[in-house]
């Protein structure tokens, strides 16, 4: 009997060992890579070139951790921090920060969501979407078009990053 249970334990251990690396792989591939973040940066810069602006931007992963930060050459001191908070907001609430701003207008039942630490009710944060999944976000601050312009710039960045993620998924 004890022989039997020992065999069972060994079999269970083998199964766990086989599963463990796969789980680890699945988790690491869900992060935003530096290549994807750089693609977002290039797209935001291309948008800014058309716009004649010099924005700051942040790319964060789904855990809210920083992947990339860039402060524009003539950025005001607040721009980078704002970009980070916009990205945080888009990732946290899984929508553009401009939509979240409108959803949490003063007087609405959702207004108190604005108390969330680090969130900010300003446009310029856009989630990086792969299908229906949010895998991170891009935040932009300092374009010429105000909150709408920042949103458009961040959208270009998020699309560029998502395109690389989709390409990677297609390869695998």
């Amino acid at each position: 009997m004890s022989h039997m249970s020992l065999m069972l334990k060994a079999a269970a251990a083998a199964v766990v060992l086989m599963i463990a690396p796969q789980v680890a792989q699945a988790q690491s591939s869900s992060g935003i890579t530096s290549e994807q973040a750089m693609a977002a940066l290039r797209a935001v810069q291309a948008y800014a070139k058309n716009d004649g602006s010099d924005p700051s931007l942040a790319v964060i992963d789904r855990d809210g951790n920083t992947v990339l930060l860039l402060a524009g050459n003539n950025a005001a001191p607040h721009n980078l921090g704002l970009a980070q908070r916009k990205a945080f907001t888009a990732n946290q609430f899984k929508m553009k920060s401009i939509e979240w701003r409108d959803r949490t207008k003063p007087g609405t039942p959702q207004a108190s969501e604005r108390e969330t630490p680090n969130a900010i009710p300003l446009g310029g944060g856009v989630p990086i979407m792969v299908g229906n999944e949010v895998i991170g976000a891009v935040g932009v601050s300092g374009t010429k078009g105000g909150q709408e312009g920042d949103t458009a710039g961040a959208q270009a960045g998020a699309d560029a990053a998502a395109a690389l993620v989709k390409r990677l998924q297609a390869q695998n």
Partner: protein
Amino acid sequence: MQKLITGLAVGVVAIFVGSAGFALVQQMTKQFTLQSLGGNDISVEQALLVAQGAVDACKKDNSVITVAVVDHVGGVRFIVRGDGASPEMVDNARRKAYTARTFRQATSAWMERTAMDAKDEKGKLIDLYGQRLLENTIAQKGGMPIIWHNDAIGGVGVAGSKGGEEADEACAKAGVDAIADQLF
């Protein structure tokens, strides 16, 4: 009487010309002063080249590094996290860059100077350990200043290379070297 009027007129004109000239000189000096304050800062374009240089140097042993470039006041200009790096690497690299920028030297050299038992060439205790207690500094190798005209216009910090802090510093140096042609 006529002489007095002429004299007064000449005096008034002289005052006008004089004050106008003074204002002009003042204006020119002002512009000169403002101009000389601008420009001594690392640009986005330079920061990206520095980071790329560091990443490329560290690729030789397949290291995946996190790089931070700070500007002339120690603020973040650019940071990119290495794939799979732990989240705190970002702040680690930033603090290396900040330390190199603010003390205008490689963090390795700063560590030697600020060690508890560091002595000068005459054998006297330097006792700069207190600098290590400043916010945002870090006593780790891997930070290099970006020097232009004897002034630090920025700093670069590298964290997470396979060769440890020595390799971090070599990669940071390679990053600065990537824009050596612009640093005279």
